[in-house]
């Protein structure tokens, strides 16, 4: 009896303990009229907000949740299109069933395409700005240069110089490796754009990885990142173009950018005026200003004579009648992790023709005449260049770099010149041989301290042989009666040996101390022989026109620089001390000199806030005369010019003041950059010229006080409403100097230049884009007479992308010359149409240049002795049919 009762009790107790804590929450969810199915019911802990359990309502709107937790909770009921409801509830062990019915209020979500976040095409981190190219390109880009023009903040000028904001890049790397240093144009003008996925702009870049964070660098570099499928495979393209009148172009690129080894072969053969090397000089002689371990940069042989086309202010390709062949082989090997070997070699053959007619009006005291020249220049050149770089990383903090360069150039320049009705022939044959060896050892002996030791040896020689088949110099050489031609043989040689020790110590708060101790020795030899000939026999070698100059300069120097930062200000103080040993031997007379001088410099930059930056600096510099300033006898520097130096030692002093204000960053809607530069040369080399119709003899003289001031302002506005960027460029330059012409006594020459330009460039996403601009230039030269003129250049570029396969680019220019009475306006029209036959494989193109067939181009210029009008012959209209194959 009692047992049965107990058993029932036990069962009851057991049963309730089994059910202990298991609560069953259920109910219905409706919208006051009808049940809501598939509504979400969530049980959340009221404190931790974590979700304990969740379920959905069934077709009748009923839900059921089970939990064995106790405490305070929220029951959250929601459904799309309704306002969610939160019911607070308390669960304790005694409850078994809870019924909670919920009524939801309708609230349909009005989502009219809410854009949360676009994938950022630009990402910025520390010193790197990364651009994903697919957001900036429209498929019409052929070369890397075309691609970089589309990246905001990068400026590419007409010669292909790449700048970030206002600063030229140091190098253009591909996947972290650099092949060409400052000679990057050979890469940007030839490498195709299609394999590039990202462009990185690296600010505060250091060429030497150990200096990163230690040296004060505002240098920039670009790094192109390739897409995955282009790595580790051979890829490239071949483009052939054929046009009328034997205009042709053949371009080929073959690349393999693997992780261990990178290869880049390129070739360019063309007759359309295109200069594929960019500027060969940047490849052979890259120049790094004031950079650690840059000893010897900028030391090159000085030559006196050159027959080459002048710099004009429009596309050089229009006057460059050429037939060029370029082959370049480049490779980077990483045989071990510590060793990197770079090789660069190129061969360039070029035959260029240049045509010019000019009329020079000279009006100066004692000389008033007009010269006419009909000039046809033919330059033939053959250049072979090789460079070998070894970089060995001993450890993370020690590295050795050795660079060897060899250059061999052969030039043959012939000019057919009709001078004042006389038919003449000039011939200049010259060679250039360069050997350059540099070794640099750098060690980072402390976290922020680096020591570099660099040695450099350069040997360069440039012999020249010049002949002119007329004799216009009776007044100079009265004794030579039967002379009918002249010739000059010259040889310039330069040897340089230097050693430099450089210590950089980055202190706390960002202060930087730099100390340098070095010795640089340079020897220049200038041997010139001028002969007066009758037919083939030399009848005279006049004294005063022969040079046997040997000029040796030894510079022992100590340089110190301290950069001091307080808050937003940075102060730089520099003090350089130089002890020079100069020795000059001129035609067996020798002299020496040991000047000592100190050059101080002070600078300040102030970062007013994120958008405003101010920079100013003052410096006093002393420049030692170079070999071209010290030779004593006349040298022929052109068919009607003779020059001589001072024959003596000289050091020139100058003071300069720079002021720069920057408002905004190039990525802002509004960006302005203003530069004011004031330079005063306390002494400088000017000329004392005897000017006659047939010849001019100039002698270098030392004059005091020359001033130069330049004010330049660049403004950029971005107008969102028309998706276009407006650029305003204003500048003013004034320079004053003195010279002597025809024994006038020292006369003052003032030159004023104003330029104002406007550019509007669109950034439409659609098919059509434009770029229009105009630039006015006014030049004025004042001496005893006043000459001035105003020119205008305007351009309009249109780009139409019809679809993925077909696009057309059009470029038109207008030149207006203020002082020409007739023929003062010139129009040019170029177009490029491209059709992609097979996507990424085969592209056909049609391009036309100079469609208005402007054959001649006349321009006007002024100088301190008069003015001249010059007419250039231009490449006529041609149309090319192109085919490009990619693999």
């Amino acid at each position, binding site marked *: 009896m009692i047992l049965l009762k107990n058993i029932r009790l036990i069962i009851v107790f057991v049963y309730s303990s089994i059910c202990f804590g298991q609560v069953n929450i259920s109910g219905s969810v409706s919208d006051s009229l*009808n*049940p*809501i*199915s*598939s*509504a*979400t019911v*969530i049980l*959340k802990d009221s404190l*931790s*907000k*974590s*979700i*304990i*359990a*969740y379920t*959905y309502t069934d*077709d009748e709107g009923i839900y059921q949740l089970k939990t064995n937790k106790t405490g305070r909770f929220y029951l*959250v009921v*929601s*459904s*799309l*299109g309704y306002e*969610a409801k939160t019911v607070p509830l308390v669960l304790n062990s005694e409850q078994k069933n809870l019924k909670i019915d919920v009524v939801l209020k309708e609230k*349909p*979500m*009005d*989502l*009219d*395409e*809410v*854009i*949360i*976040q*676009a*994938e950022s095409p630009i990402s910025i981190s520390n010193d790197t700005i990364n651009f994903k190219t*697919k*957001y900036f*390109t*429209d*498929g019409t880009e052929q070369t890397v240069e075309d691609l970089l023009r589309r990246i905001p903040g990068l400026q590419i000028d007409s010669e292909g110089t790449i700048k970030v904001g206002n600063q030229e890049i140091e190098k253009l790397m591909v996947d972290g490796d650099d092949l060409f240093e400052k000679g990057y144009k050979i890469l940007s003008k030839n490498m195709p754009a299609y394999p590039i996925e990202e462009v990185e702009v690296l600010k505060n870049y250091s060429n030497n990885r150990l200096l990163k964070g230690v040296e004060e660098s505002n240098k920039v570099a670009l790094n192109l990142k390739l897409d*995955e499928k282009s790595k580790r495979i051979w890829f490239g393209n071949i483009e052939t173009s054929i046009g009328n009148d034997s205009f042709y172009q053949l371009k080929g690129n073959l690349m393999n950018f693997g992780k261990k080894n990178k290869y880049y072969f390129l070739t360019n053969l063309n007759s359309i005026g295109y200069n594929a090397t960019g500027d060969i000089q940047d490849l052979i002689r890259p120049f790094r200003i004031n950079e650690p371990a840059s000893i010897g940069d900028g030391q090159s042989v000085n030559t006196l004579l050159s027959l080459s086309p002048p710099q004009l202010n429009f596309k050089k390709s229009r006057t460059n009648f050429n037939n060029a062949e370029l082959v370049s082989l480049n490779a980077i090997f990483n045989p071990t992790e510590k060793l990197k070997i770079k090789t660069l070699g190129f061969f360039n053959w070029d035959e260029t023709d240049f045509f010019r007619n000019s009329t020079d009006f000279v009006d100066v005291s004692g000389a008033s005449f007009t010269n006419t020249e009909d000039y046809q220049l033919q330059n033939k050149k053959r250049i072979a260049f090789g460079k070998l770089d070894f970089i060995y990383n001993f450890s993370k903090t020690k590295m050795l770099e050795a660079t060897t360069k060899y250059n061999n150039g052969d030039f043959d320049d012939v000019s057919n010149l009709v001078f004042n009705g006389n038919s003449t022939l000039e011939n200049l044959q010259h060679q250039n041989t360069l050997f350059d060896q540099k070794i640099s050892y750098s060690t980072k002996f402390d976290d922020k301290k680096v020591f570099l030791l660099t040695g450099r040896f350069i040997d360069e020689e440039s012999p020249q042989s010049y002949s002119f088949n007329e004799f216009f110099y009776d007044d100079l050489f009265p004794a030579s009666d039967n002379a009918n031609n002249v010739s000059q043989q010259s040889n310039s040689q330069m040897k340089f040996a230097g050693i430099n020790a450089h210590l950089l110590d980055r202190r706390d708060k960002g202060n930087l101390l730099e100390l340098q101790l070095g010795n640089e020795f340079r020897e220049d030899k200038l041997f010139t022989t001028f002969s007066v000939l009758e037919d083939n026999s030399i009848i005279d070698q006049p004294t005063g026109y022969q040079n046997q100059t040997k000029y040796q300069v030894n510079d022992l120097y100590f340089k110190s620089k301290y950069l001091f930062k307080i808050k937003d200000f940075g102060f730089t103080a520099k003090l350089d001390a130089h002890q020079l040993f100069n020795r000059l031997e001129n035609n067996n007379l020798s002299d020496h000199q040991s000047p000592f001088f100190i050059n101080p410099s002070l600078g300040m930059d102030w970062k007013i806030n994120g958008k405003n930056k101010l920079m100013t600096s003052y410096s006093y510099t002393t420049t030692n005369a170079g070999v071209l300033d010290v030779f004593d006898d006349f040298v022929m520097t052109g068919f009607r010019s003779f020059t001589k130096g001072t024959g003596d030692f000289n050091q020139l002093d100058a003071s300069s003041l720079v002021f720069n204000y920057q408002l905004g960053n190039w990525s802002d809607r509004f960006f302005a950059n203003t530069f004011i530069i004031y330079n005063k040369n306390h002494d400088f080399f000017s000329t004392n010229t005897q000017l006659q119709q047939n010849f001019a003899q100039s002698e270098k003289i030392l004059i005091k006080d020359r001033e130069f001031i330049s004010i330049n302002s660049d403004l950029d506005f971005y107008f969102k409403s028309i998706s276009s960027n407006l650029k305003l460029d204003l500048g003013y330059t004034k320079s004053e100097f003195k010279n002597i012409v025809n024994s006038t006594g020292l006369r003052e020459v003032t030159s004023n230049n104003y330029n104002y330009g406007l550019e509007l460039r669109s950034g439409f*996403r659609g098919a059509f884009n434009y770029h229009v601009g105009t630039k006015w230039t006014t030049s004025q030269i004042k001496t005893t007479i006043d000459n001035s003129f105003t020119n205008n250049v305007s351009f309009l570029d249109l780009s139409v992308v019809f679809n*993925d396969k077909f696009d057309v680019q059009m470029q038109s220019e207008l030149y207006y010359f203020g002082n020409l009475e007739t023929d003062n306006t010139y129009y040019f029209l170029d177009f490029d149409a491209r059709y992609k036959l097979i996507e990424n494989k085969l592209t056909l193109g049609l391009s036309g240049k100079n469609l208005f067939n402007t054959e001649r181009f006349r321009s006007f210029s002024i100088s301190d002795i008069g003015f001249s009008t010059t007419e250039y012959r231009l490449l006529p209209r041609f149309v090319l049919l192109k085919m490009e194959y990619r693999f």
Partner: protein
Amino acid sequence: MIGIKQYFFCLFFLKVLVIYSQTIEINYEQSFQNSSINLYKKYDLVLTDSLSIYIERESKSGNKNEGNVYNQKTYNLELGNKMNSNVYVNKRDGFYFLETFFGQALEIKEDVFKNNWQMIDSTKYIANYECKLATKEFRGRKFFVWYTNQIPTTFGPWKLNGLDGLILEARDSNSEFKLNALKIKSIDASTDTLYNALINKINLLFENEKEILTIDELKEFIDNKNQIILNRVKQQLPRGVSTPKLSSNCEECNDSLEKY
């Protein structure tokens, strides 16, 4: 009499009500990047109260800006085609997904997701939505997500479900896996033909029970494939070299997104 009529009338209304349910579509960008893999894909998440589909969006390759491409999206679900879009579907009776393993497109039914989301006391705004932070361990990775209560749903992108709001941003602790919502919009289910075609295709896809693998069956499949590769390697080894063994303890093996 009147009762039955009213009953049927109510039933009719119920049917109508069941059809009406708001549908929203969210565009995501999902990327998985580490030293050996670099994947970047666009996905669409289409969800209603009872169903969610997270599907890879094929877009035209190349240089067009995203604004033009959105209207030309396509989904690729032809079975047997190696370039299938990945699909992840949340139905009431379970979670299914389609992915390509060793060149084969497999339909898999997921195990029930563990309810192990932990809330972290942090809020931020993404567009106009107030988002909270939550974290969970899943298949060898720790995920951090930002989700918003203002869009009430337990469905989410990829395999991240079970929160009381829509996930707008997610990443794992190594920042190798990243997920971002780009656009949200509502869909008119009655007129959007692409959406309806998608629903039909998905229903067809996960219809045949026999074709659908479980996670254990998937593990077996992966092991078999790895073994075949290993055998081929063994066949080519020269005499005297000991045979290698499959090991899951290697540094590079942490490269896949999920560890089954």
